[in-house]
């Protein structure tokens, strides 16, 4: 295969048509007239909403904006602006009270306080993997960072039990959104449109029965860089296109790169493509500004994350046998 730096360039018009055909076919197959989509203020959901409107018409697309107290303030603003641009109906539900009732913040904060006893709700917190895998090799271990609001920042490597506790609490945010999306979808006889892209899908960067709990995934074949290409072509608002991608679930803002991928999407996507297609590290380096050691390191990380998250991409194992 001839690998080159523009290998992920797509014909946007053709791709948009292909995805819109897919959405229409799925609407028929699912026997639903329209779509419900969670608008996060990020580029993936903005693109999916745009594609659904092109495929089904604006009357058949409903946007749910589901902020919580750790969401960036601009997320809600950008989501509403994108919805207005598309002319779709939306509802905004602050899920903070639901999360408080479940104990999301309390459970997470208790975990953090076992590491930093001084931590209180005025602090900001995030978890990250070691930075810049391509510059410096390191295993994937998570570090908790807290900021007391006065610029005093502390960090600590997380033990497995603390990491699991923080992640489990944080994931309830995504799962609560899923409950809201399905409530509205069933009430309106619509399907829930997912927003996971290929970079996320292959690396397991989504939550089972959270943002992974949907009826269709119209952009799961597109790498993030292709999501940007298509978003620009289809007129997703500039504020969203220029925003740094983030999980938007921590009070201390963190990018996708810092939280999980350990490299920018411009490097991640072509490398991921190469890894998926069996292109050698040597060939990749000829097409990118990298050495073979860096490419191999990236491949090793992809392999490790792919394997560790394989269960997300599969149906729950069972003893059911196919009868036909």
């Amino acid at each position: 295969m001839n690998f080159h730096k523009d290998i992920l360039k797509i014909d946007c018009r053709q791709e948009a048509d292909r995805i819109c055909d897919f959405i229409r076919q799925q609407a028929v197959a699912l026997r639903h007239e329209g779509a419900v989509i969670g608008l996060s203020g990020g580029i993936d959901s903005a693109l999916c909403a745009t594609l659904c409107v092109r495929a089904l018409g604006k009357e058949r697309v409903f946007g749910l904006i589901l902020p919580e107290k750790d969401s960036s303030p601009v997320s809600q603003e950008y989501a509403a602006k994108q919805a207005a641009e598309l002319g779709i109906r939306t509802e905004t539900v602050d899920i903070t009270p639901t999360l408080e009732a479940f104990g999301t913040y309390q459970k997470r904060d208790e975990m953090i306080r076992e590491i930093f006893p001084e931590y209180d709700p005025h602090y900001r917190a995030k978890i990250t993997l070691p930075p810049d895998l391509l510059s410096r090799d390191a295993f994937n271990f998570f570090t908790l960072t807290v900021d007391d609001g006065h610029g005093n920042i502390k960090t600590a490597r997380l033990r497995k039990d603390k990491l699991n506790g923080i992640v489990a609490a944080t994931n309830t945010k995504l799962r609560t959104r899923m409950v809201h999306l399905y409530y509205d979808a069933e009430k309106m006889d619509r399907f829930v449109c997912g927003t996971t892209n290929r970079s996320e899908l292959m690396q397991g960067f989504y939550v089972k029965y959270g943002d992974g709990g949907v009826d269709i995934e119209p952009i799961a074949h597109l790498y993030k860089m292709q999501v940007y290409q298509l978003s620009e072509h289809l007129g997703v608002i500039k504020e969203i296109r220029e925003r740094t991608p983030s999980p938007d679930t921590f009070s201390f803002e963190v990018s996708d790169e810092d939280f999980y991928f350990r490299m920018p999407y411009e490097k991640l996507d072509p490398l991921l493509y190469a890894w998926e297609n069996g292109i050698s590290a040597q060939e990749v380096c000829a097409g990118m500004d990298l050495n073979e050691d860096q490419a191999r390191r990236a491949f090793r990380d992809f392999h490790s994350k792919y394997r560790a998250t394989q269960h997300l991409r599969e149906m729950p194992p069972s003893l059911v046998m196919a009868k036909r």
Partner: protein
Amino acid sequence: MRSFMNENALKVAHEGIGRKLRSFITSNFLPQSGLESFLDTDSFMEKGIIDSTGVLELLEFIEGEFAIKVEDEEVIPNNLDSLQKLTLFIQGKLEHAAQ
């Protein structure tokens, strides 16, 4: 004579560390990896023996078992990505602490 004894003591210590590590890895990580055994030089990551949460468990084990502190900067494949590397790394830390 002294030199021989030191070398011998080091060898015994090395084997002891390796045995403890192999036992921990075999019982905690090997069943999930689908492997029945592994070589001292096998890469844990490439063989799928240890993933990101496995690394955390391994660090907890070696910090507790050998009473050493592993710094973040030391959590790199060169130190931890095979039984051989890990054993040498721990031995080096113990020797450094003893000096």
